[in-house]
């Protein structure tokens, strides 16, 4: 295999990276036009919210956030991995040029905010002002999301949520079938084991992550065993939404985020449960 050349940013000579092909970034930028980019940036960042304003108008560029970032520490203290550097290379540049950036720049932004930051908020713990840098990175993610430029994997997860309200493309049938199958499996080990579906007035409603009923089905069975042993009065929802993972949050797809959270609470209120237990 031929060794590919390293990528050097046009704007920032210090930004040198290994090539990282991803159709979610490489192909999607071909659909972008300068007008579309400008309009999107202005829509997200134009009317500056108090939180954006506070960060932009306070940051004194001291670089004290750098050591908070595990990307910075694990890349030999390369300054381009510092949290403040990520703002400098994305939002500051977007606002400085008033949204007049090209598709290649958006791709670079997407690479920075999606693949070089985990939105862990550790930089806020190290910033003397406690600036919400992760929030700013999230806003840049939203710009990229609205433009359709994001890693293929994250786009797929978001689309799964948009369509099925869970991250694993499960229909309601798949979900109920898995629950009943796991009840059968566990029933061989424990007497009287049940996974109550849609039990009204239960104490607790269990909401798994999407991957549990799909790739880690034994989690369902084990949760049932724990609940039985602990004597908990519990239930699982028989209707959407049951997946609490909310992947759209990672691309800042606000509309779908809202549908999921609302769906979870609607299930809880429909079944009149007192507590929701989420897997993490």
């Amino acid at each position, binding site marked *: 295999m031929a060794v590919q050349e390293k990528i050097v940013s046009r704007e*920032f000579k210090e930004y040198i990276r290994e090539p990282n092909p991803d159709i979610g970034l490489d192909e999607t930028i071909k659909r972008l036009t300068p007008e579309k980019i400008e309009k999107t940036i202005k829509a997200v960042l134009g009317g500056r919210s108090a*939180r954006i304003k506070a960060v932009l108008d306070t940051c004194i*560029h001291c670089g004290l956030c750098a050591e908070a970032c595990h990307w*910075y520490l694990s890349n030999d*203290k390369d300054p381009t991995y510092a949290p403040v550097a990520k703002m400098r290379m994305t939002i500051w540049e977007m606002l400085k040029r008033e949204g007049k950036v090209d598709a290649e720049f958006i791709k670079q932004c997407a690479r920075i905010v999606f693949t070089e930051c985990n939105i862990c*908020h550790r930089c806020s713990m190290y*910033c003397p002002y406690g600036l919400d840098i992760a929030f700013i990175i999230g806003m840049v993610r939203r710009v990229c999301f609205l433009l359709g430029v994001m890693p293929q994997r994250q786009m797929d997860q978001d689309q799964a949520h948009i369509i099925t309200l869970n991250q694993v493309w499960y229909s309601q049938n798949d979900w109920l079938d898995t629950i009943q199958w796991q009840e059968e499996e566990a029933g061989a080990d424990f007497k009287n084991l049940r996974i109550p579906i849609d039990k009204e007035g239960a104490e607790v409603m269990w909401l798994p992550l999407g991957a549990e009923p799909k790739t880690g089905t034994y989690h369902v069975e084990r949760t049932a065993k724990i609940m039985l042993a602990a004597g908990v009065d519990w239930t699982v929802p028989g209707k959407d939404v049951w997946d609490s993972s909310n992947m759209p949050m990672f691309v800042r797809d606000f509309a779908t985020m809202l549908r999921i959270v609302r769906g979870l609470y609607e299930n809880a209120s429909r079944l009149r449960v007192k507590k929701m237990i989420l897997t993490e």
Partner: protein
Amino acid sequence: MEFLASATLYNILRGPLVWVAFLIFIGGSSYRAYKVINQAKKEKVILPFISIKATLLSLLHWLIPFGSRRWRLKPVVTIMTFLFHIGLVFTPIFLLSHNILWYESWGITWWTLSENTADIMTIIVIFTCIFFFLRRTFAPEVRFVTFSSDYILLTISFLPFFTGFLAYHQWLIPHKAMLNLHILFGEIMLIAIPFTRLFHMIYFFLTRSWMSSNFALWHTKDW
């Protein structure tokens, strides 16, 4: 040079421009703080999450030297930062000569620093400014995010102290000229605060409040 040392310039700087500088500094800062708090109120997702307890705890930890993990990990930067800000804020307020000016104008007076202490504090501000300049120029993570505006802000805070120091010791150029320069730079700094990122003196309390309250919700602390 003659104009610079003239009584006319002194009278302008000492008279109307002081009023202008203080009015812009106090009025502008209050207006800007009011505006952003008002905006936060309208946005509805900020104020309900603010916790006074978390804010006060966070401010306490960050205002005490070595009170937060960040300050402990970088002792040199911490010491420089605290010395710089203490000198920057308290020297002008408690300087004897400034106090005399207040007394002459309005007949009010408060505590003063001894001349020697004030002199040392001024030297500290000058040296910490040089430290920040060197850090900005040579530390890679800081250099990458440095713009000319950062150097300008540093210069704005440096000049009043530098000229004040020279005026006090009557070095370099005639005392009256240096004094006029000192007053001018001081007024420029006051005027600059509400319009530049020097406004972090107010924003510090607001942004800390927001983040510490968030961290309190996540059952952790931000220091």
